[in-house]
């Protein structure tokens, strides 16, 4: 009897908590939290450039699933690489993506961001955002998937151009000519170049 009550209770709790975690954040909530945090940092005049970068980087790392992005960029080549190679690629690729995304966001300081809509289907979602600037409205859509109670970004689409598809086609082309090691070397060179010329 006690066992049954306990079991019912546990099942009940499990169900409730599962439901709560699912109802917790909509994908738009999650994107908005991150975007707002980034904008707040950009607008914070007390921070210098380095601090801003570091803080934004932290937020981006929380929200972007760089491993999923890497996997999708390498596509069929992903399974052909060793774990060590994967590790290297993910590390370099996250630095490049982060740099590129933050660079783009930075150029839109002091602008408003609208959230015209979202599409959720199962564990995947698209959150539409619109960066409203004085000269143009730029549509930026985030593709997310649910991992636990969090929605993680696995692609960003700016004016209809998917970043990941773009990287994939470029990287495949480079790999065709220079192989996987050639690609890694190019990525490393690019990161060095970015590091040596700030802003």
């Amino acid at each position, binding site marked *: 009897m006690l066992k049954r009550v306990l079991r019912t209770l546990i099942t009940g709790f*499990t169900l409730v908590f*599962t439901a709560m*975690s*699912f109802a917790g954040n909509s994908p738009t909530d999650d994107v908005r939290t991150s975007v707002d945090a980034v904008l707040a940092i950009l607008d914070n005049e007390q921070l210098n450039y380095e601090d801003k970068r570091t803080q934004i980087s932290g937020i981006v790392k929380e929200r972007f699933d760089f*491993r*999923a992005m890497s*996997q*999708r960029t390498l*596509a069929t080549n992903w399974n052909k690489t060793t774990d060590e190679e994967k590790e290297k690629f993910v590390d370099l690729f996250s630095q*490049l993506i982060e*740099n*590129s995304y933050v*660079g*783009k966001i930075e*150029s*839109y300081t002091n602008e408003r961001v609208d959230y015209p809509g979202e*599409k959720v*289907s*199962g*564990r*995947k979602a*698209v959150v539409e955002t619109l960066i409203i*600037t*004085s*000269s*143009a409205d730029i549509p930026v859509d985030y*593709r997310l*998937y*649910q*991992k*636990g*109670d969090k929605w993680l970004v*696995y692609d960003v689409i700016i*004016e*209809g*151009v*998917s970043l990941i*598809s*773009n990287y*994939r*086609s*470029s*990287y*495949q*082309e*480079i790999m065709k000519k220079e192989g996987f090691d050639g*690609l890694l070397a*190019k*990525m490393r060179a*690019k990161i060095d170049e*970015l590091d040596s010329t700030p802003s």
Partner: protein
Amino acid sequence: MIKKLLLAWLIFILPQTVLGTESRRGFIETYEDQSDSVQELAPPVLEEMESGGTDEETEPYMDDDDLSFLDEEDEVIEVYDPFETFNRGMFWFNDKAYFYVMKPVAKGWRWLAPEPLRIGIRNFFSNLRAPIRFVNAALQGKFRDAGNELTRFGVNSTLGIGGLYDPAKAHFGIERKIEDTGQTLAHYGVGPGPYLVLPFLGPSNFRDGIGLLGDFYFSLVPVLFENRYYWIAISGDIINFLSIDKDTYEGIKKDSLDPYLFMRDAYGQYRLNLIIH
């Protein structure tokens, strides 16, 4: 004739130049089947996930490598680029023209003229091209969009003082929708053909290049500005556009391992997105 063609290219590709690159395969091709995978979340995956049943609900975490359910929008645009050597040469030329001529002039103009004026000028030229959008929306059977363009043209030419302002958007919420002859051709099944980098204008392809002829025909810019004034107007429009742009090309160059590949793919995606909407 060649002159006019070039001119037409000037107007239309430029706004896209800064953004991207295009396109693939043969000439005859429809986009219908791709539209789903590009923008929509395909239903089969949903079913797959639901059939996972209770396990999935109690264990919402997934294996690190099990992201295959994301794959169905894996739509890689393969740009057909048989003239890559030529195109890369032209890309190099445009890069120099951009950094040594166009951008410095645009920066001077940016320094000289306040942004609202520059936006006004951009709106003015955009308004003169409204007939292109109207005709091409209508030709594709998008009568609602065509109607919107007509309304926008009427409102902005009058209340917007000859198109300097955009009250149609600001007060009536009617947005501009980019439609051009290249998109109309695509709508009727014409594929992009070989990728082409045009001098000064950047990314294009055979279809969109031909489309520019149609655009030129419907634009009011050559009606208002004739002969050499047309060149002046067009160059001014481009420089003015670059003065407003937030250094998009510089960003692309800085970020990508190979800017040529970035632009080529981005143009393809950008055009495809315009075509299916």
